[in-house]
């Protein structure tokens, strides 16, 4: 029996994307990574996994961008790196993530989060605290006693690093929530830096900001990578192209392609990456 045109079309669509055997592996191997994601799958409950079997190394002192259309699991992957996804009940995962030699899922999450800081989509300074206290909030809230001089030094250093010092040095004891959105976000980055983590995770840190504030934060991230390793989720492709050294492209919970940003943006290895980058979906 002859199949109809529609059936033929469906058949074609149902076929998986053919990966050219001649092509290199779309997942680049990173030499001596600071963080090693090993066959990680994360589920928010049930058998449905939001990310599936993701393996990747994160290069030290580089900016790694995670891109992909909404719902592809990029935020889940980022949160799984410092176990913030566990805030939701019923999460479970397979595989693991190694920080150096240590399995982070066997670490105390409280200690882990001191080594891997996080900055969120919306600026979230602590509303009851002054700018000064916000910067050293990690120490204050964890009951770590510091001398006045040490505190002053940490506050000044962190605020200088994010370029906020000259803007707020006369208002350190005002509430952080009176700053502009971009300033608040830089304050949040300073708060993460002040705690001297090894890695900073940023979950779409500029999506709530205007272009000028965004540019400032991008410049800042590029500057910061000499001291920290940065992992950034963004659905802004040009942002990834501008500032990242490595890029991941995720689609439907799968890590489709991972490699040097320049390489990926000029010669993507996977057809889906190419289609995303050229705006065919997303």
């Amino acid at each position: 029996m002859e199949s109809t045109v529609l059936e033929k079309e469906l058949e074609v669509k149902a076929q998986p994307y053919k990966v050219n055997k001649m092509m290199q592996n779309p997942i680049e191997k990173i030499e001596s990574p600071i963080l090693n994601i090993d066959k990680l799958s994360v589920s928010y409950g049930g058998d449905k996994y939001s990310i599936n079997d993701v393996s990747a190394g994160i290069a030290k002192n580089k900016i790694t961008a995670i891109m992909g259309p909404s719902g592809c699991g990029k935020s889940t992957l980022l949160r799984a790196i410092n176990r913030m996804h566990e805030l939701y009940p019923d999460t479970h995962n397979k595989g693991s993530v190694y920080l150096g030699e240590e399995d982070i899922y066997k670490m105390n999450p409280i200690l882990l989060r001191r080594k891997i800081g996080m900055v969120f989509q919306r600026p979230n300074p602590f509303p009851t605290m002054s700018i000064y206290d916000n910067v050293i909030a990690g120490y204050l809230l964890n009951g770590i006693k510091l001398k006045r001089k040490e505190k002053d030094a940490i506050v000044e250093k962190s605020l200088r690093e994010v370029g906020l010092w000259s803007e707020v040095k006369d208002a350190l004891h005002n509430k952080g929530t009176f700053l502009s959105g971009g300033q608040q976000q830089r304050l949040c980055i300073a708060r993460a830096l002040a705690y001297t983590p090894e890695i900073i995770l940023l979950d779409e840190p500029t999506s709530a900001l205007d272009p000028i504030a965004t540019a400032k934060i991008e410049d800042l991230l590029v500057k910061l990578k000499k001291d920290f390793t940065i992992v950034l989720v963004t659905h802004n492709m040009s942002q990834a192209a501008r500032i990242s050294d490595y890029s991941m492209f995720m689609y439907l919970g799968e890590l489709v392609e991972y490699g040097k940003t320049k390489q990926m943006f000029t010669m993507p290895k996977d057809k889906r990456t190419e289609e995303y980058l050229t705006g065919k979906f997303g």
Partner: protein
Amino acid sequence: MNTSTQISKAKINRRLLKDKLFTYAIIFLAFLSSVPLFLILFELIKKGYRQINISFFYKVAPDTMEAMVAVKNNEIIPGGIANGIVGTLIIVGMASLIAIPLGIICGMYLAENSKGKFAGVVRFIVDMLQGVPSIVLGVIGYIWVVKPITGGFSGLAGSVALSIMMLPSIVRSTEETLKMIPDTLKEAALSLGVPYHKTMLRVILPSGISGILTGVILGISRIAGETAPLMLTALGSAAISTDITKPSSAIPLLVWEFYNDPNLVNMIWSASLFLLILILILNLSAKAIAKKWKVQY
């Protein structure tokens, strides 16, 4: 032109008139509902102002004989409500000490586990508690504290009964306030490695302080005027009593006592006026705190 689709001028005018009448009726009814408070205040001030002087605040309730003589000579009754003021302060203070921590913790639990089954049961029970008649709480205070613990009427028993009464308002206001606080704030603290309990106590709770305090003050103002539970627990005392295991007076109890003594009837108005003003001040300060301490996220 087809006349049937047109609305006549008279009809339009009738509609406009209806509109106007409706508006005025609403304004009038709204005004009407605020009248009683002013009438009460007016009545109390008119009848009670004469009794309110400095000795009103530091003298205990007058002796009925002295009062009789004073009334006969058309003088003001010598005496005050100091035993009631001290009693109310102690009883309400103790009730707050019991109810505030309990209520805030319970509200925090409900806000954090808003969908849990147990939380649902707790929320339901707290709502039911709101509807328990105050006299029943008095009986409970009598059975729980008067008989087994203090072996007689006591201020403590009154505090226990009143603490149950103020609990629902604290629980619900804490829950509602904490639910409004964005999750991103909790995430911010947790991502700094701050343990959960510290996140709740040092970040989330302070951010909701205005709403919680408002609930606490409204709870206090609700119990400050309660009489029925105190009749079965604190009973009343002619002298100033600071011992919580002994019977104690309270302002609403004094009003009741004045009512029962024909010679002291004039004192009702001043004691009621003082109680009413106290509660009005509490309510106003709750409003002021809600406005002033509001935390901007």
